[in-house]
Structures are given as structure tokens and as C-alpha cells.
């Protein structure tokens, strides 16, 4: 395990990051101009990194598969961003945000990383406000805050229900400014399909130009992946249709270890599935739980009557309702963390008390909030969300309770990175949701935006310099170097093989099948038996995919079906690794719930045996991956049972 060096700086927790910054090696401005950095992905982490590095003077090449960097899926985050500003005078502090994040992550994240994240959270708000991000304000003109899932202080900054959009447009503006100044060259509609390594160092990528279909070569002294999460492995998720694991997976196959792939976040408040044709699930912001009360009927009979349309929510008397979150978790109630709220909804529905025709749905009720605050206040508070819900479901949440159910939303797992955000491949970095670093086994609400921006604005500009300072004598490597030719050949052969299958089933047939396997056996509750079965099913699916997939069109044109096929091929391989990881982890923690390990429904961790990061090394598609462990050492907090009761 000696190679898994997390490079956590010496010193007391609160001083580590400062110590690091004060001693990190620097690159002088004249040398920065000669150094090229590739950034894959233009969400919060990618756009922030590309802009910040270009501001410092590096030559940046940025890539996204969408038609514009402004479309990255960070844009869809609704609720808010946490920061330990303590503007509300309610006792918040860096340590408290750090502690809440570690605890929320069920004690499976690195202390030093999370402390750094909590520290930088304050700078993020300053930076975003300076960019003109229109955060919500109070009448005095100062910034407004609200409390958000799993938090007892008000530390969440927000811009209506569009916080992700506004933060991303801030970062996008900063990126476009650098593009305009000529410091960033932007490649939209490009998908990374290979990472190029030379003498053990990442030196570039092969990207597919999605319009022409051509494979193009790009050199960089360092490569940063900020390519987002892999929730679409479940087919149905709240992710965008194009969100994929491809860049991270290609890096994994070239030597970057993949950490904790089984840690997936199933978000409690999404619109329930209604039909087979459904292409994605829509999240209703967690902020709704501030005022909404989650309930199901106390009896199965009432639930059945509602499912069959014989009764509606208003027919169920107050004393016949089970506000199960308030009942089970009196101190946090409806605001308990996501993994807990999701599992509780599953339990209620498994108990036969679901209230939508499929049986998989619970109520989120605003009647009390409307009584307390008035319709206008409630409407103003959830501006975009109510009309959005009404548009999709044809029901008005001001009149009848929302119906919600958990859905795959975020992944805590990702490429393993050290404190400097470098993967196990020298010179290859990973930022944002694509890495595994800060959320442990469960992410708290309003923490994803914080992590993406912290990584991009405030961490990578320091840590990459520490590496690039030793690269100032490396001249730009021409892309006719054999390593580029080799990587391109590999990508080309894979593409030709894929399109040459000419089988009978569509790409979506396979993707849906994979999604079903993952949701059934590697979703909200997992068992050794189910996971073992899932692995065989996925292996069979992979074989069938490569012998029976049908992709229309050719490789030398704009061909979205082919792009999708490449992504699904990677999802299938990733799915198997997730199952292997879930099977290895004989405990329940955060988003990973193994039915064998519980205390009456509450997750039972095993700190003795599993207080480690599982980092997997790829060997071959048909071979078992090799497990490397990074022990999690807690020097500043005591591991305890995570109780929200």
C-alpha cells in the first residue's frame, strides 16, 4: 500500500492548508506562459479551474461535450452552497462545517481535505459575489442564508432555486473572459476518449470531435479531469442525459485508481417514476424539506385507497398520518440527511404504504407551511420549483401534497486523488464530483457546489504549481509523438469495433438493462447475494453488448447514438466495479447500505475493519481489480454512531 500516499501536510488540522500553501513550489510568470494545461469538463470545477489557471498565466485548453461550456450539469443544482461565514450569528464556524461534513459523510472522508474545504468555503462566496452572482439578499442589502438538509445552522447561500446555474454562469463568465483574452482555447462538442501518458506522466488527451467524428490529439504538461459524476450508470437518474464516466474511466484504465465507486447518493425528493419511456428523473430541491412535511398514511388500507384513487391526501385525518421522519428523528425531523430520508421512504413503501400507483412514492406536504406563512410567502420561497413540479405532474403543490420518491442523484465515489488532487497517474488531476475526495460515504446538501468551486478556484491553482514547477524544462511535446499515435490508434480501433457490431439491440436497450441491474442490486439496499448475482449479470450484459449492439450511421459524422454507445460501454465496466466494491465493503455507511449490517434499519458501520478508502486498480476488463487501502486516520474528531434522533 505504500504507493497510496495521500500527501497530507504536517501540522495541526487548522494549519495544514496554510502550511502547504506557504511551502508549495511556485512557477514564475515567464515560465507559466510556456506551460500548457488541459481541462476536461466545464462545470463548476472545470470552468473555475480553467479560468483561474489562465488568470495565473498558464496556457489552458478546455473541453466539453456540450455545445457550450455554459451547459455543464452543475447548472441544474437548485438548492444552494454552504459556507462557514456565520453571517447569521448562529454559532457556525469552519470547524463546525468541517465536522458536519465529516459526520454527514458517515466518517469515511479525509479530515485534512474536508477541513480545507470548509476553510475555502468562505472565499468562494466572496469570489462569486464579486463576479456578480445574484445571491438572495435581505432588505438591508446583505446576503440571505437558509438552513439546508442535515444542518442546524443557516449557512446555505442561494439564488432562488437556481443556485447552480448562477454559480456556473459566474465561472463560465470568468472562463469566457479568458477565452476572449486568448488564454484559454475552448473545444466544445469534444469528448475525451483517451488520456496520453509518456514516461509515466499524463501528457495529453485524444478527443473525439463530435461534429466531424475525427479523433484529435492535444498536448498538455498536465491534464485535469473535471468531468462530473457517473450517476447515469443507473440509466434513470437526475443527471443530464449526456453526463458520463468516460473520461474518468479511460483514466482509470490507464492507471488512475478508482475510489469508493459504490458510494452513491440516492436523493430523497424526486418526482416518482411513471413509465417505461421515462428518460430521466427530476429532482425537487431538498430546500423543500425546510417547509414541507414528509408523510404516508399510518395504515396500508388508506395507502391502498390512495393508490387506487379512492381517497386523496385530504381524506386522511391528521391522526391517521405517519410523519415518519419527525417520528423517527425528532431532533432533525424532515431535515435529516439524504441517505437517511431516502431509506426511510423506501421502508415506508416496502411496508405497503406508498401512495402512487407503482407503490413507490410518499407525500411532501406544504399545508402546514401555507397555514403558518401564507400562500404568497411559500410561493416566493420556492419560486421555480412549484411551477416545475406542476408542469411535469399536472398537480398544484399549493393545493395537494407533492408526491416524491428517492432517485440517484450524485456519486461520492470517483478517481482517487491525494491532497493535491492528483490521481495515481503523475500529472493527471481530478476535480469536483469526478473525484472521491471530500464527501465520504454521503454528501450533505449544498456541499457539491462548494466542493466543485473550492477544487477549481482555490485548490488546484496552488497544487498544480507545486508539480509544474518541476516541468518548466519540459518543452511542449509534438502530437506526432508515438504515444499520441498509440493512444489514437487504441481509440480508433475501439470505435471501429463498436460500430462494426451491427447487432439487433439499441444502445438504450443495454443502458436500461444495466440500470435495472444496478437499481435492483446496487441501489438503496444491497446484499452479498444480490451483488454476487449482479456481477454475473453485468458480465453477461457486457458480452452481449459487444456482440449485439446496433449503432446506426458512421464514425465520420455527427452521430449522437455512437457517442452514447461509447459511454454505455464504459458504464457497463464501471457497474461491475461498483458491485465489486459494494460486495467488499461488509458494513453499512452513508449511501452504502448493506441489509446484512443494520440495527433495526439504521446503518451499522464497522470502523475496525472498514475505516479506509477502497481504491481499485484496473488490471484488465476480464480480470479482478486490485484493492488498495488508504486508512482513514481521525486525529481531531471521535468516530461515533451517526445519530439524528
Amino acid at each position, binding site marked *: 500500500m505504500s504507493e497510496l500516499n495521500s500527501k497530507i501536510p504536517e501540522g495541526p488540522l487548522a494549519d495544514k492548508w496554510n502550511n502547504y500553501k506557504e511551502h508549495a513550489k511556485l512557477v514564475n510568470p515567464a515560465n507559466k506562459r510556456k506551460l500548457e494545461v488541459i481541462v476536461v469538463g466545464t462545470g463548476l470545477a472545470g470552468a473555475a479551474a480553467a*479560468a*483561474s489557471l489562465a488568470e495565473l498565466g498558464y496556457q489552458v485548453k478546455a473541453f466539453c461535450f*456540450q*455545445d*457550450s*461550456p*455554459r*451547459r455543464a*450539469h452543475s447548472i*441544474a443544482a437548485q438548492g444552494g452552497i454552504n459556507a462557514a461565514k456565520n453571517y447569521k450569528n448562529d454559532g457556525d464556524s469552519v470547524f463546525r462545517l468541517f465536522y458536519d461534513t465529516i459526520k454527514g459523510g458517515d466518517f469515511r472522508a479525509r479530515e485534512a481535505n474536508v477541513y480545507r474545504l470548509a476553510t475555502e468555503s468562505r472565499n468562494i*462566496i*466572496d*469570489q*462569486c*459575489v*464579486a*463576479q*456578480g452572482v*445574484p*445571491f438572495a*439578499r*435581505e*432588505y*438591508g*442589502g*446583505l*446576503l440571505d442564508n437558509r438552513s439546508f438538509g442535515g444542518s442546524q445552522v443557516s449557512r446555505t447561500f442561494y*439564488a*432562488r432555486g*437556481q443556485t447552480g*446555474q*448562477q454559480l456556473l*454562469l459566474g465561472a463560465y*463568465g470568468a472562463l*469566457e*473572459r479568458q*477565452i*476572449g483574452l486568448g488564454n484559454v482555447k475552448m473545444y*466544445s462538442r469534444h469528448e475525451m476518449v483517451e488520456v496520453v501518458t509518456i514516461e509515466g506522466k499524463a501528457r495529453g488527451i485524444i478527443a473525439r470531435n463530435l*461534429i466531424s467524428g475525427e479523433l484529435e490529439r492535444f498536448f498538455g504538461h498536465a491534464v485535469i479531469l473535471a468531468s462530473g459524476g457517473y450517476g447515469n450508470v443507473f440509466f434513470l437518474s437526475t443527471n*443530464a*442525459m*449526456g453526463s458520463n464516466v468516460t473520461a474518468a474511466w479511460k483514466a482509470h484504465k490507464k492507471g488512475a485508481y478508482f475510489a469508493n465507486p459504490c458510494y452513491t447518493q440516492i436523493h430523497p425528493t424526486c418526482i416518482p417514476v411513471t413509465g417505461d*419511456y*421515462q*428518460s*430521466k428523473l*427530476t*429532482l425537487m430541491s431538498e430546500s423543500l424539506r425546510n417547509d414541507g412535511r414528509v408523510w404516508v398514511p399510518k395504515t396500508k388500507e388508506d395507502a391502498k385507497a390512495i393508490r387506487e384513487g379512492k381517497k386523496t391526501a385530504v381524506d386522511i385525518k391528521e391522526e391517521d398520518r405517519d410523519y415518519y421522519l419527525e417520528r423517527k428523528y425528532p431532533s432533525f425531523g424532515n431535515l435529516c440527511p439524504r441517505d437517511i430520508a431516502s431509506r426511510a421512504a423506501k421502508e415506508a413503501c416496502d411496508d405497503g404504504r406508498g401512495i402512487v400507483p407503482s407503490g413507490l412514492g410518499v407525500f411532501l406536504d406544504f399545508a402546514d407551511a401555507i397555514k403558518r406563512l401564507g400562500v404568497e410567502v411559500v410561493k416566493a420561497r420556492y419560486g421555480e420549483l412549484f411551477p*416545475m413540479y406542476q408542469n*411535469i405532474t*399536472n398537480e398544484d403543490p399549493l393545493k395537494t401534497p407533492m408526491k416524491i420518491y428517492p432517485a440517484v442523484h450524485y456519486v461520492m465515489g470517483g478517481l482517487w486523488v491525494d491532497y493535491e488532487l492528483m490521481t495515481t497517474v503523475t500529472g493527471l488531476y481530478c476535480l469536483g464530483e469526478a473525484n472521491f475526495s471530500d464527501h465520504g460515504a454521503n454528501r450533505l446538501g449544498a456541499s457539491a457546489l462548494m466542493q466543485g468551486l473550492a477544487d477549481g478556484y482555490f485548490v488546484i491553482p496552488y497544487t498544480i504549481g507545486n508539480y509544474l514547477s518541476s516541468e518548466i524544462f519540459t518543452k511542449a511535446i509534438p502530437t506526432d509523438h508515438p504515444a499520441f499515435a498509440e493512444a489514437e490508434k487504441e481509440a480508433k480501433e475501439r470505435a471501429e469495433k463498436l460500430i462494426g457490431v451491427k447487432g439487433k439491440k*439499441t444502445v*438504450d436497450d443495454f443502458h436500461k438493462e444495466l440500470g435495472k441491474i444496478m437499481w435492483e442490486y446496487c441501489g438503496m439496499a444491497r446484499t452479498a447475494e444480490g451483488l454476487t448475482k449482479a456481477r454475473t449479470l453485468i458480465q453477461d450484459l457486457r458480452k452481449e453488448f459487444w456482440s449485439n449492439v*446496433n449503432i*446506426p*450511421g458512421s464514425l465520420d459524422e*455527427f452521430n*449522437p*447514438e455512437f457517442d452514447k454507445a461509447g459511454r454505455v460501454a464504459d458504464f457497463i465496466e464501471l457497474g461491475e466495479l461498483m458491485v465489486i466494491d459494494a460486495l467488499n465493503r461488509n458494513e453499512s455507511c452513508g449511501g452504502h447500505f448493506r441489509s446484512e449490517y443494520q440495527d433495526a434499519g439504521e446503518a451499522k458501520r464497522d470502523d475496525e475493519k472498514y475505516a479506509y478508502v477502497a481504491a481499485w486498480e484496473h488490471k484488465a476488463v476480464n480480470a479482478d481489480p486490485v484493492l488498495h487501502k488508504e486508512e482513514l486516520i481521525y486525529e481531531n474528531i471521535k468516530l461515533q454512531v451517526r445519530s439524528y434522533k
Partner: protein
Amino acid sequence: MKFNLKVWRQKNAKAQGKLVDYTIDNINADMSFLEMVDVLNDNLTRKGEDPIAFDHDCREGICGMCSMYISGRAHGPHHAATTCQLYMRSFKDGDTIYVEPFRAGAFPIVKDLVTDRSAFDRIIAKGGFVSVNTGQAQDANNLPVDKADAEKAMDAAACIGCGACVAACPNSAAMLFVSAKISQLALLPQGGPERNNRAINMVNQMDEEGFGNCTNIGACEAECPKEIKLTNIARMNREYLVASLVNE
């Protein structure tokens, strides 16, 4: 439900395009419009035909990637909704639906319903930002902003950059898009120092990209999925005029 679709098919930027007829049956009223197209594409793929290329990503109305001119309206018949937020219950069984790309000289067609909207990015690159490098910011609460101004700025900032305003405008003007960004930053103190250059540079780039002029028709506001107001254009004109005088 059953529908007759007339869909614009065009192999690539240079090819000649045309409307092609498709019939689709067994459509559920709760499907989104894009899910209906998914079903159609699934049918086409199984028949060995080329599926229809269209832009889409988040499918929850915020990324701005989906487009489509549906029976003569950008993003279809609904007010304040993107194509991905349009549901088949909005149509009548047996309807004939025309599906075309967002048409404008400055949005060249890539394939079928997919267009190149990168002109918008180039306009933003000319000034749709505050020039503040990472790390230069002061404490966020050192700069109070009038709540009413912040709300108006947020109204303008809600723009998703989809291009419906351009597609709806007979002049192919991009003024609603450009004015939304200029307004957001003009309403906030952070945008103050650069406001003159911003107005001039963004407007110049808009003209260079080949977008038309505003003749107060208002189709942009009517079709905007985020209800960006026409008053932003008035504000942009004011900003531009003042900037022209000041810069003289």
C-alpha cells in the same frame, strides 16, 4: 395518442434539408416532447434508419441545450417552458406537428435539428462578466446590494442562453439575450466599473455575428422560456447610448 410529424432532416451544414413525414402511435400523454422523439428515434434505429439528431441534456429546463421550433413556435406552444418541459398532453390526438431547428443566419445548422449557437459564447467573451481574478474579492457582505436591484438582476440572470429569442424574432435579433447579461451586471454595483465597455463591446460583437436589430415586435419576450423582459432591451439601449457618449 397518435401524431403526424413533419421533421426537418438535414445531413450536415452544407446539405440541402427538407421536411420528412413520420407517423407515431401509442404515445402517452405524460411523455415529454423529447421522450416522444426518443421513441421515434428508437423506432427509426430498429428499422435501420438514421435517427433524428437533436440537442438536449438536462431535460429539466435549465441547461438551455434543447431547442426545436415546434409548429411555428420556439420550444412549442407553451409559455415559459423549454422543449424538454413540454408534455404531449399539450397536443390533441391526431395532431400534425412541425419540428424544425432554431433558424437564424447566426445559428448555422449542424445536422437535422442541431444548430451551432457558439455566437452567444463569443458575445459573452466580449464582456459578459466582471473582471475579477480568483482571490481578489473582498468579504461578500462588504458590498450591500439593494434587494430590489438584486431581484431584478436575478430576473435577467435567469437567461439560459437557448436562443429561442433569436429564433422567434423575424429579424433574428439577439437583443434579449445580450440585454439580459448587460442588465444583470448594470443593476449590480459589481458591474459598474466596466459597464461602458461592456455595452459597446457586446453590442459590437452581436452585430459582427450577424444578428439583426430590434424593431419592438416582442416575439422574443413572448417565447422566452425564462420570461426575460423586453425592458432589458430598453436598458441595454440606454447603457449603449450612455457608453457611446462617454467613450467619445
